[in-house]
C-alpha cells in the first residue's frame, strides 16, 4: 500500500529524510511522532508529491515514483489527480477558501467524485441536493451546522479545523494523512475529532482506509493508532505497535519528561471508555507518574 525504499529527501543541502525501508499496509492506523524538524511533515509531502525526492523510491496506492530531475512532473497530470483524489489531507497549512461559505467549503471535498458531483455542476458551483445534505450532516457531526452559511473567514482557528475535517469526510479517501489535526482545538473537541477520524477510517468501504497521523499529544496515541513510528532527524527511531511503546520511549523522542504533558480530567475518562470498546488489550492514559504504557490495566 505504502512502501518507501531507500528514501532520501534533501532540502537546501540538508538531508531531511533518510529511510531505508518502511511499509504500511492498507487499513492500518499509524501515528508518527517526533520533534519539530524531525522530518514528519516532509514525509507527508514526499508521499503526496509536494516535495521531490532525491533518492530512493516511493510507492503509494499503486503509483510508484523515484527521484526525478527538477521541472519534470512526477506523474502524468491525470494520474496525479486520481492519486490525490484517493488521498485525504488534513493539514494545518491547507486552509479553507475564504470567500466561500462553510458548507460550500465542505462540499469541495467531493470535487473529484464525479458520481456524487458531476463535473459540469461543479464548474457552475450548482451542487446536488444529496451532496448538500451529506455536507450538512458532516457539519452536524462536528457541531458546526449553525455556521453552514457563514463565510469561511469568519470562523476561529479551531472551527476551521473542524470544517476541514468535515471536508475530508466527503472525500471518501483510501489514505488519510492528518498533520496535527487538532492543534487548535480544546481537549474536548480534540477527543471528538480524533474519534471521528478513527471512525471515518474504519467505516470507509469494504477495506478500512489507511490512517497516518502526526501526533504530539501522547494521550491521543491510543485513539488514533495501532502502530507508532518515531522519527528523529529524518531517520526512523522506532516502529512498534502501540502495545510495545512505553512512556520512556516517547520521552526519549521528545527529550523531555512527559509527566507535565498529562491531559485534563474529562479526556482521561473518555479514553478509558474508548479503549474498553476498542480491540486493544492495553488501555492507555497518561497520568501523573511516568509508567510504562503497556502496563496500564483496568
Amino acid at each position, binding site marked *: 500500500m505504502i512502501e518507501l525504499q531507500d528514501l532520501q529527501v534533501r532540502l537546501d543541502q540538508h538531508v531531511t529524510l533518510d529511510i531505508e525501508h518502511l511499509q504500511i499496509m492498507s487499513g492500518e492506523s499509524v501515528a508518527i511522532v517526533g520533534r519539530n524538524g524531525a522530518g514528519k511533515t516532509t514525509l507527508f509531502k514526499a508521499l503526496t508529491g509536494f516535495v521531490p525526492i532525491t533518492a530512493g523510491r516511493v510507492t503509494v496506492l499503486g503509483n510508484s515514483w523515484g527521484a526525478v530531475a527538477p521541472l519534470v512532473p512526477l506523474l502524468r497530470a491525470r494520474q496525479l489527480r486520481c492519486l490525490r483524489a484517493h488521498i*485525504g489531507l488534513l493539514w494545518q497549512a491547507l*486552509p479553507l*477558501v*475564504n470567500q*466561500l461559505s462553510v458548507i460550500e467549503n465542505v462540499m469541495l471535498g467531493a*470535487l473529484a467524485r464525479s458520481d456524487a458531483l458531476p463535473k459540469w455542476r461543479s*464548474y457552475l458551483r450548482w451542487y446536488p441536493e444529496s451532496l448538500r445534505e451529506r455536507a450538512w450532516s458532516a457539519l452536524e457531526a462536528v457541531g458546526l451546522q449553525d455556521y453552514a452559511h457563514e463565510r469561511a473567514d469568519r470562523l476561529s482557528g479551531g472551527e476551521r479545523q473542524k470544517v476541514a475535517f468535515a471536508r475530508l469526510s466527503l472525500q471518501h479517501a483510501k489514505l488519510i494523512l492528518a498533520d496535527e489535526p487538532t492543534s487548535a482545538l480544546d481537549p474536548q473537541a480534540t477527543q471528538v475529532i480524533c474519534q471521528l477520524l478513527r471512525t471515518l477510517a474504519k467505516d470507509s468501504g469494504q477495506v478500512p482506509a489507511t490512517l497516518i497521523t502526526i501526533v504530539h499529544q501522547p494521550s491521543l496515541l491510543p485513539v488514533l493508532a495501532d502502530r507508532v513510528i518515531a522519527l528523529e532527524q529524518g531517520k526512523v527511531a522506532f516502529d512498534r505497535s502501540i502495545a510495545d511503546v512505553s512512556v520512556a520511549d516517547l520521552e526519549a523522542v521528545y527529550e523531555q519528561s512527559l509527566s507535565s504533558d498529562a491531559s485534563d480530567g474529562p479526556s482521561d475518562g473518555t479514553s478509558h471508555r474508548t479503549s474498553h470498546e476498542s480491540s486493544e488489550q492495553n488501555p492507555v492514559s497518561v497520568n501523573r507518574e511516568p509508567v510504562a504504557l503497556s502496563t496500564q490495566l483496568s
Partner: protein
Amino acid sequence: MSSPHDRILSPVGGMLRPVRLSRTTIWLGGYLSLVALCLWALILAGDFSFGRNPWQQLWQSMVELSRPSFLDIWFGDQALTYRSDDGAVLRVENRQALEWSFLTAVGRATWVTFQIATLGSALAAIAAWPLGMLSANNLQSPIWLRLLAKLILDVSRSIHTLVFGLILVGIVGLGPMAGILAIAAHSLGTYGKLYAESIESLDMAAVDAVRATGADPLQVFCTAIWPTVFPQIIGHHLYVWEFNIRDSTILGLIGAGGLGLLISEAVSLFQWKRLATILLVVVVLVTSFDALSKRLRKGLR
C-alpha cells in the same frame, strides 16, 4: 551586505565627526538632487520661461472662459446683426437657437465619448484576462509565455492612447471605432497588470487544498480562484473605466470622434466661450461617473 547606516563625515566645531544617515535620508537626498538637476538643466537651456505677459494672458483667458456659451441660450441676442464697414447687413444670427444647437451637438458628442470609453474598457477587460493569468507568477505558466504576456502588457501600457489612436485612424478610418480600439489597446496593459496582481495575492494554500482533493484545473479555478478574484476584478474595472472616460474626451483631437473633436474646433477657431461650455460638460461627466463608481465600489465591500 551593505550596512543600513552610512557614515558621512561632517565638520562640526572644527572637527570631523561621523554622522549616521539612514537609508531613507539617502534616498530623499538623492531624489531632491535629481529634481534640482532637472530644474537647473531647464534653466540652462533657456526653457524656464512663461512667455510674454503671462499674467495678462492668463487674465484674458480667464475672462473669456468665465462666460460659457450656453448662457446665450437664455440671454443671447435673438437677432445679432453683422454689418460690414459701410452699414450693409451681412448676416443675422439667432444666438439662442445657435447655442442651443451647439449644446445638443455637445450632448451627442458626450454620448459618443461615453460609448468609446465603455466599449473600449469592456473589450480590454475581457482581452486582458488571459494575458493577466499568463503573466501572474503563481499559476505555473510556462516561462516563455509568461514573459511574452508581460511584454505585451508593458508595451500596451507604455504607448499612450492618443498614439494608438493616431495609428488606428490610419487603419480603420476616422470615427469612434478607432477611439474604441485605441482605448482598448492602452488599457489592456493596465487591466492585465491589475489582474496579475489580484491573482498573485491569492492564498495559494487554499487553492492547493482544493487541488489536493483531486480536482481538475477547471474545478480549481471555478471554486477557489474565481470567487476570490471576481470582486477585485469589478473594482479594477470601475477604476480603469473611469480613467478611460477621461481619456476618451480628448481622443476626438485626432479624429476618433466625441468631445475631442469639438474641443479641437473651438480651440482652432478661438471660440473660448464654447470651449468653456465643453469643458464644463467634461467636468460634469467625469465627476458624476467618479461619484457613481465610488458608490458602486463601496457597495462591493
